[in-house]
């Protein structure tokens, strides 16, 4: 059955004809590019080396899809551009007297003790390209100093003379009244990439808004090159196919929107996997799920409540503050390629350094000699095979682990076991970070494990953390690409809206929310499906730092919100008080429900169940196993699932593997 057992929160906005169509999802990683083709409720996947390019993956998927599909891609293009400091020459226009907003930032340094490094990363806009405009809006939106036409002209001329590719505009209090920003933007809009703060991040706190807006401007010219290449590759294999990009909030956006807001793609890859997890969580009615995506260099985890990913803001990317709605993924430097090493006082460490794709783990036989988690996996017999035609060399893995063991007084096998245990501890810490710290009991969560290494290790982490259940989805090794296929066209937006809840002009708040929804709906230019809306307010006790998001529907009233907030606060922080509550922001997520259901792989061909044996236990063919007790290794062409002693595994009709405490 291809419908969600858990109804999606939100109410239908208006109904439009639906256009179900095949989807091709593409997730480009460091070593492999994963492609999933979802068509009529079934899915197929393939992996191609990333070196071969997007075109190769699409060409190979051409044979697997009938008709013209939509192509949805996760991209790390913008992320990499920022990390590699490949930014366009960009100008920033701010309120006069505040042109140094990026230089001053929040005035803190990133590292407390290292005198050898710069206090902060260099801003995306150099100081000589920051311009002040004589104008002033007050905190309530009242213009205090008018922006004259002459001043607009002067600033526009100065920016033009600077010869930049991109311009960011961020004026004080523009979240309360964007008129001055809009006028400046109109005058600056002549052939350069333009990013305006009230359209990028309409929230209070000028540095975070300016940083986000400026960085967004600085990557607009770059994403253009990527998007053009993507469109060409798509046109070669699927002429006329519409294409989309996955954004940090775990939905997809049109290419046109990605051109205006490229910074919204910085969590594209992880968000796609989380989006697929959300679909699974709703399908199986998992009230609390945590995605565990363990790849080559890192493990990404994210909590989902009632099938909705927890969201976060104020992320750091390459030292820059990025304040855009995003799934709250925590990333730790423990992946399959993470190097195990002994530090200066003789303690065993794992990561954060990774052997990368080249040379990769020793077992890859590409010249790597340092022991990695993957080498430890091979030695312990956890590896059933690896996708993409890579052979694993056990001898090389053993040599690498033996070298590590000799420094610790351990055998190669003992060193491998210790390496894996340390990696598990790091993953457990990340899991606690996203659950326990938010007031959720980790033990009551279901782990949803995917990525190449996730299904090998999640079972052991679950046993040690007291987690009852792990779900390893079908297509676990290409799950993020599946997430691309399942993404909904969605936009999340937030705007500052300050009021005391007990004195609030409720119709005004509702108007604010409706305005936000209307703006998003207009941006979506929907002609694809039913529009759905989830509205919420950010609330806090007066003077508190953090806010909690509380949903708003037609029934909501200040009294109901107060009760809902108290309940959330008690759950997250352990107490609630009768202090005044403040509204700080209005949020909305608007998405298009195209009726895209779940996509399960076609049943596997029949064959032997047992296909081999390792020192860990029997190796079984993943698709053929109904129920098995650990230790066992379930493997297919692309993925390996490890069932640990004390655990059972069963496979459901869609090919998902459930690990449970025996």
């Amino acid at each position, binding site marked *: 059955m291809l419908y969600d057992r858990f109804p999606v929160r939100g109410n239908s906005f208006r109904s439009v004809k639906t256009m179900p169509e095949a989807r091709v999802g593409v997730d480009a990683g460091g070593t492999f590019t994963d492609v999933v083709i979802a068509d009529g409720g079934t899915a197929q996947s393939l992996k191609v080396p990333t070196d071969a390019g997007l075109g190769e993956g699409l060409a190979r998927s051409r044979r697997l899809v009938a008709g013209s599909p939509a192509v949805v891609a996760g991209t790390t293009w913008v992320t990499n551009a920022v990390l590699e400091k490949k930014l366009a020459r960009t100008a920033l226009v701010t309120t006069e007297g505040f042109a140094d907003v990026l230089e001053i930032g929040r005035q803190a340094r990133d590292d407390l003790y290292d005198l050898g490094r710069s206090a902060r990363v260099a801003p995306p806009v150099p100081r000589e390209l920051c311009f002040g405009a004589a104008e002033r809006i007050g905190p309530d939106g009242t213009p205090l100093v008018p922006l004259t036409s002459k001043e607009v002209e002067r600033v526009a001329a100065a920016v033009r003379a600077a010869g930049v590719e991109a311009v960011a505009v961020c004026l004080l209090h523009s979240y309360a009244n964007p008129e001055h920003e809009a006028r400046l933007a109109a005058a600056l809009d002549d052939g350069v990439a333009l990013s305006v703060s009230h359209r990028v991040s309409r929230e209070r706190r000028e540095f975070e808004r300016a940083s986000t807006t400026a960085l967004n401007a600085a990557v607009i010219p770059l994403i253009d090159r990527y998007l053009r290449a993507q469109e060409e590759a798509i046109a070669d294999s699927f002429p006329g196919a519409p294409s989309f990009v996955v954004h940090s909030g775990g939905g997809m956006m049109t290419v046109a929107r990605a051109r205006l807001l490229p910074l919204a793609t910085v969590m594209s890859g992880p968000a796609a996997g989380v989006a697929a997890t959300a679909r699974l969580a709703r399908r199986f009615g998992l009230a609390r799920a945590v995605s565990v995506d363990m790849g080559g260099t890192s493990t990404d985890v994210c909590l989902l409540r009632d099938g909705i990913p927890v969201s976060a803001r104020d992320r750091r990317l390459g030292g820059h503050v990025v304040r855009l709605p995003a799934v709250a993924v925590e990333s730790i430097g423990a992946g399959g390629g993470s190097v195990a090493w002994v530090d200066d006082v003789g303690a065993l460490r794992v990561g954060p350094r990774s052997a990368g794709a080249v040379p990769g783990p020793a077992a890859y036989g590409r010249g790597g000699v340092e022991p990695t988690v993957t080498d430890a996996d091979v030695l312990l017999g956890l590896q059933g095979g690896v996708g993409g035609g890579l052979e694993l060399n056990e001898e090389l893995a053993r040599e690498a682990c033996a070298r590590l063991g000799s420094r610790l007084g351990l055998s190669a096998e003992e060193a491998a076991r210790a390496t894996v245990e340390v990696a598990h501890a790091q993953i457990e810490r990340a899991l606690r970070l996203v659950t326990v710290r938010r007031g959720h009991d980790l033990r009551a969560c279901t782990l949803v494990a995917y990525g190449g290494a996730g299904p090998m290790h999640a079972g052991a982490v679950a046993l040690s953390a007291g987690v009852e259940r792990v779900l390893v989805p079908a297509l676990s090794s290409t799950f993020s690409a599946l997430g691309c296929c399942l993404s909904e066209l969605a936009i999340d937006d937030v705007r500052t809206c300050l009021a005391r809840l007990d004195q609030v002009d409720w119709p005004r708040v509702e108007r604010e929310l409706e305005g936000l929804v209307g703006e998003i709906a207009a941006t979506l230019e929907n002609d694809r499906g039913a529009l759905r809306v989830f509205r919420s307010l950010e609330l806090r006790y007066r003077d508190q*730092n953090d806010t909690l998001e509380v949903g708003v529907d037609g029934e909501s009233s200040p009294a109901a919100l107060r009760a809902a907030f108290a309940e959330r606060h008690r759950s997250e922080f352990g107490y609630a008080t009768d*202090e005044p509550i403040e509204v700080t922001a209005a949020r909305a997520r608007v998405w298009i429900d195209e009726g895209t259901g779940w996509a399960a792989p076609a049943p596997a061909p029949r064959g032997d169940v047992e296909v081999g044996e390792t020192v860990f236990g029997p190796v079984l063919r993943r698709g053929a196993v109904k129920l098995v007790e650990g230790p066992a290794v379930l493997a297919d062409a692309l993925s390996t699932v490890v069932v640990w002693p004390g655990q059972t595994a069963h496979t459901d009709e869609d090919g998902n593997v459930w690990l449970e405490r025996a």
Partner: protein
Amino acid sequence: MRLDPAQLEVIREATTAVAEEMKFDLMRTARSPVLREAGDLSCALTDAAGRTVAQGQDIPMHLGVLSFTARRLLETVPPERLLPGDVYFTNLPACGGNHLPDVKAIRPVFADGSLAAFAVALAHWPDVGGALPGSYVPYAREIYQEGLVIPPTRLFAADGPCEEPLRLVLANVRGAEQRRGDIQAQAATTSIADKRLQEVFAAHGLEAVREVWERMQDESEQRVRRALAGVPDGRYEGEDALDDDGVGNEPVTIRVAVMVTGDRAVFDFRGSDPAARGPVNTTPFIAAASVAYVVRAVLGPEIASNDGLLRSLEVLTEPGSLLDPGPAAPLVAGNHETSQRIVDALLRALAQAVPERVVAGGMGSSGLALFSIGDDFLYETHAGGSGASAERDGDAAVRIHMSNVMNTPTEVIETEYPLRIERHELRTGSGGAGRHRGGDGLRRVYRVLAKEARLTTMVERARIAPWGLAGGADGEPSAVWLERDGERKALRGKGSIELRRDDVVIVETAGGGGWGAA
């Protein structure tokens, strides 16, 4: 019992995670802007003896101080009187203290019925009573003018708040409602840490956890010893001075002799000036905190902050001096002004031993401007330039060394206080010239929109500029200005005045010193 390498790392991970999470718990729930926006707080875990095991990436000054707090608590309250669920609060300088606004919440954590650890959460309260709102009294001559002194006092027990002492505290501070919220947040933070530690004990066994905690401390000690062994043996002297003590106009000098012998070092501050009349005095704990900071910054940024870091470092101070002034001395500014000057004196001494690793002088001051308007306080620090080094230029507008408190955004100030920020910009050219330039200071301009307000400042480096190194020029000194009725007047760096509507206050912070002849 022999720990296997995996167990060591697993327990280390778990312990560090608890210490780091505390800060977020506290920041998320605290009420005062100085905590929630500026993050002026720190947290630590100690073992049963009160020795710190793990601390978050917080404020260096606090971290040094927290190394002593729980140990001193045990000297006042014997362990047999501590009960599960207790939370003691203290700001007593003698109890591993620094200054009265930094109030520590200390919870004993029990396992199997015996004391196993302490969870400590330090928060800067925007007011602890005293002669002026905000508890910064530049002209204070005694600690009693600086606010309520809280010797270790149990404010929470297993069955909830201890209302009587809590009322006593709240009756003596301004903004009682907000303070109650902060106190509750501090207690809740230690309670969450307690819960997490119980899980760690249950998962790994108390014995193994204790052993790992010992090992963590030993590792830091080993790393310090190894780093010291790389410093040439010898005696290195350094000094630097504060502009004044807030009461008079004479500089106040800190002198240190660093004696390195093999893998040990002695830091002798006994040549420093006698106790000051005004609030720039400080405690031996701050001297030790400053030493710990400099050792990490100059010798090994990777050394974990715990009790082991201090074991091979001997810190000597003279009773009756600036750094050990006795129980009645005022010391509110010593925490963030004098501590920075101690760092300067230490860096100047170490510049003779390891010149390539030392940076020139910078804005070694909180640059504090405290506006009190009605019942509201805005406690705002101002960063300046950092000093240049042999390797690179200094940084502009950055908090250095012992502090890392953030600013409050202009948009937050303007929505929450009757103030308008007219400018917030770099002071171009204020960094000292040199082969590598010092970083620039900044300028922030405040206009008062309320009928009346009070401004208290603690701005150092206004007379004695940040020093250049190896022939580099000094940075520009700091300044505070008042513009009233079209006239501009220089204010004292440490002072307190009444303001009225349309007054304009300009805070200019010092640039960093340059390195090498230009």
